[in-house]
Every structure is written in structure tokens, then in C-alpha cells.
């Protein structure tokens, strides 16, 4: 399985030693699982799991017009950020399609740290750098400077606190701090992609293997991409390339909470303004299978024999023990309770729209 052409994260060797089942994930060799998806999933919901997300990209946007650039390039209102806070948003094309979905961390009003999807990092950098032309702002791709570990689960704070001088208890969701983790400079944010409490830790690549081992020794369970996908889907967090891409708008993707039409001009604003007035043509809805079977990415949704939409994500939900998924449906058929058919290997199989997220942690 060791493919010479695949990119490797700084944690690759540790993952091999831990018996990770390695796969090609968008050009990166990453573990899909260690002990098993169900077990890893449960560890995150009940205790703490550790994910290598070092493949994610990081950009910096600095300068007097940093805020102006990000306001123009994204749909959420970056001016609402404060130092030490993070924001989920969409980097959009003028068509309102997604260049990427990203996290913006504000260090200072003229200094932002942007976390992007691995496979999009070069594209995002080029898009932002291009949009920055003529503006007093510098965009840099600093992906190679960071390894990223995601420690997720109700015990995350208890495991991480002894290793860091950053006070975790007072840190609220979507806040971050800078300090040390295991004696080396780190950024720690209370963020994640699992629907569970937890932290994302950014450190220099050379420091990451030691920190990973210490967190595992402290009791975190190593988790792979498989559990990451079932966890994020239960929490209805979008996956770029599956649920959203350059052909889908944030309103179609049911992400109206990140669309701030009134913040001023930005790429895709006119399209979103129209969609928000008239309603988007289709909407991403959560569903459960009524008949037996699992609807997977790309399976067609049919209505009266006609293709009416498409499944973008689907899996067996380990927490709910049901087959769940997300699908683009016609707007008038996307409300909870609506039933539709998914073509699973040629067979029409019944599904029902349900309220989302599928899973919400108890506060």
C-alpha cells in the first residue's frame, strides 16, 4: 500500500506503526481506520479520539486591506470576528458556487489565519492571491509550516489541558488561543468536524509525532477518515467535493446562516440575493432510509421515474443505527416528512427527509 507518489503527513510513520489502514485520500496517504470505524466513532462520542488532519491547508492574509479582501471573497461577515475568534464561511466564485468552505481565525484586525481543505489549498491560495491584486494585503500559503491534530470528544479538554499552558476551560466554541503544547508553540482552537466538543491543535510538523503519541498515551483513541466521515455526517457538516462544490451555492447547501447579504458587496452576492428572494432551485436535505439499504454519494433521487436530485453523502449512522444521508432535492420536496426514492443499484428505495443535524450532543 506504500505508494511513493502520495503525499505524506508528518504523522505518516506513527500511523503505520499504529496499524492504520492507509488509503489514497485526494493524493494524501492517510488512515481510513485503525481499530474499526464503529469503535473509533463511539470513542469520539463517548471519550476522546485523535485525528491527523495535517493534510488541511493553511493560508495567512495580512495587511491593511486583509479584512476588505476576506469580506469580498467570502459570504459570512468577517467584520463580526474579534481577535481570538474563528468563523466558518464560504469562499465563493462570482456564481456563488464554492471555491471552498473554510475557517477564518482572526489574530488581529489586519492578520488572519485561514484553514482550507487539503485538495483545495493551492486553488484557494491562487484565487485569494488573484482577488488581492491591487490591494494592500499579502496572502501566503503556509500549509507546509503546520501539522494539525484534531482531538475530539467529551474528554478532549481533560486530556489536552495537562499538556498546554492555554486555559481550555474558559475557551468557548469557535475561539482559539496561542501558547504552548508540550513545550512548543501552538495554536489551539475549540473547533472540530465531529459534532462533539474538542480541539484542533496546530503545531510545527517536526513536533507533531511526539504530541500525537502523548495524547494517545493519555487515552485518546487514534481515529481515521472513516470515523471522521460518519461523525461529520451525523452532525450534518458539509464535505467539500461531496455535498458542496463550485456548482452549489451556500443557500442551496442549507447554509443560510453563513450568508450575510447585508454586509456589503462580495463575490456571488447578486446570485444569493436572488436565491434568497425567490428561494433556491434545490436544497440540501438530510434523510433517513425507510426501506433497507444505504444511499451513497452520487446515487440518483427519482420522482415518478424522473431524476429529481442526487445523494451527496450517505452512510450507516453508528450513533442512530440507521442509514442516513444528504441529498439535493427540489425545494418544494425538501421539508421534513417528504418522501422520495433513491436508486440503489437500479432499485427504487424509499427515503424520508428528517430534521437535521441527525445528532446533537447534549450540552
Amino acid at each position: 500500500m506504500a505508494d511513493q507518489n502520495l503525499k505524506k503527513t508528518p504523522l505518516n510513520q506513527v500511523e503505520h506503526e499504529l496499524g492504520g489502514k492507509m488509503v489514497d485520500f485526494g493524493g494524501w496517504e492517510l488512515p481510513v481506520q485503525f481499530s474499526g470505524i464503529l469503535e473509533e466513532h463511539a470513542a469520539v462520542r463517548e471519550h476522546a479520539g485523535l485525528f491527523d488532519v495535517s493534510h488541511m491547508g493553511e493560508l495567512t492574509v495580512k495587511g491593511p486591506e486583509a479584512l476588505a479582501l476576506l469580506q469580498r471573497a467570502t459570504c459570512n461577515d468577517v467584520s463580526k470576528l474579534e481577535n481570538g475568534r474563528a468563523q466558518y464561511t464560504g469562499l465563493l466564485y462570482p456564481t456563488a458556487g464554492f471555491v471552498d468552505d473554510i475557517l477564518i481565525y482572526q489574530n488581529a484586525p489586519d492578520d488572519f489565519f485561514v484553514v482550507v481543505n487539503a485538495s483545495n489549498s493551492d486553488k484557494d491560495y491562487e484565487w485569494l492571491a488573484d482577488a488581492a491584486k491591487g490591494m494592500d494585503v499579502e496572502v501566503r500559503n503556509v500549509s507546509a509550516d503546520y501539522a494539525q491534530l484534531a482531538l475530539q470528544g467529551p474528554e478532549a479538554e481533560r486530556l489536552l489541558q495537562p499538556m498546554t499552558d492555554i486555559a481550555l476551560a474558559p475557551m468557548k466554541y469557535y475561539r482559539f488561543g496561542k501558547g504552548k503544547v508540550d513545550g512548543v508553540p501552538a495554536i489551539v482552537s475549540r473547533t472540530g468536524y465531529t459534532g462533539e466538543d474538542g480541539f484542533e491543535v496546530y503545531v510545527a510538523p517536526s513536533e507533531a509525532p511526539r504530541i500525537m503519541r502523548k495524547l494517545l498515551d493519555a487515552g485518546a483513541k487514534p481515529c481515521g477518515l472513516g470515523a471522521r466521515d460518519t461523525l461529520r455526517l451525523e452532525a450534518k457538516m458539509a464535505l467539500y467535493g461531496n455535498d458542496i462544490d463550485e456548482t452549489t451555492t451556500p443557500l442551496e447547501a442549507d447554509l443560510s446562516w453563513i450568508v450575510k447579504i447585508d454586509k456589503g458587496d462580495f463575490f456571488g452576492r447578486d446570485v444569493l440575493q436572488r436565491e434568497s428572494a425567490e428561494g433556491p432551485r434545490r436544497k440540501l436535505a438530510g434523510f433517513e432510509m425507510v426501506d433497507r439499504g444505504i444511499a451513497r454519494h452520487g446515487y440518483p433521487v427519482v420522482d415518478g421515474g424522473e431524476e429529481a436530485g442526487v445523494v451527496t453523502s450517505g452512510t450507516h449512522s453508528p450513533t442512530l443505527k440507521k442509514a442516513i444521508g444528504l441529498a439535493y432535492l427540489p425545494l418544494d420536496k425538501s421539508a421534513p416528512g417528504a418522501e422520495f426514492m433513491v436508486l440503489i443499484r437500479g432499485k427504487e428505495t424509499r427515503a424520508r427527509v428528517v430534521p437535521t443535524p441527525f445528532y446533537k450532543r447534549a450540552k
Partner: protein
Amino acid sequence: MTPEDNRYAKSHEYVHPEAGDLVIIGITDYAQKELGDVVFVELPPVGSELELGDEFGSIESVKAVSELFSPVSGQVVEINEALNDKPELVNTDPYGDGWMMKIKLTIPEEVDEMMTAEEYEEYVEKESAH
């Protein structure tokens, strides 16, 4: 580890001789490990006539779906109903309680053409090395 009395297909199903023309079909330990946690097994109705190579069902693990191919020709005389409620038996006991269906062979010679345990182990070794 690989039971000696079974025969094996390249598509990772095994055939276990039961009595006379009756055989039991399931997937191998290697196959269940490759699939990961199995959550749903779709099997054909009892009475179905299968030919060698026919797709007879599918198996869903958390991460993916795989088709199941019949390694022999014959009629389905029984399916393992226990997999409806406990599909994980395919993971925990692939050669025992995780069996899938019982078939009455129409061409018993097909079984002789399949790999022995030793041949299958060599085959798997090669396949997992590439």
C-alpha cells in the same frame, strides 16, 4: 486460519461442503477485514437460481458497498436470516455464524475448480502486496 475444508474464489467468497450437493457460502476473513464493519447484507430470496459469477447480493460496510458474486451454480435453499439483525456476524465469525446462504449445486465440479486454502492464502498475499 483459513479453513482447510473450504474452497475459495478470487472474489473472496468461500464454499463450505455441507452434505451431498449442499454447500454453504460466505465471505472470507480477508474480505471482511478489507470491508470493515459490516452493517447490512442483502441476500437473494430462497429459491433463486444462480449461475457461477452471478451477483447474488451486496454487503454494506460503514465505508462502502460491495457486490457479492456466486462462486458456483445452483439454487438458494436457505439464507442466513440472523444477518438481518446481526450483520456484524460477518466480521466476528465469517466462517461460522456469519455464513450467508446455502446452495444446492447444479454443477458440483465447479467447486473442484476453486482454490484450496493454501492457494487462496498465496493469492491473498499477492493481492495485498501490490
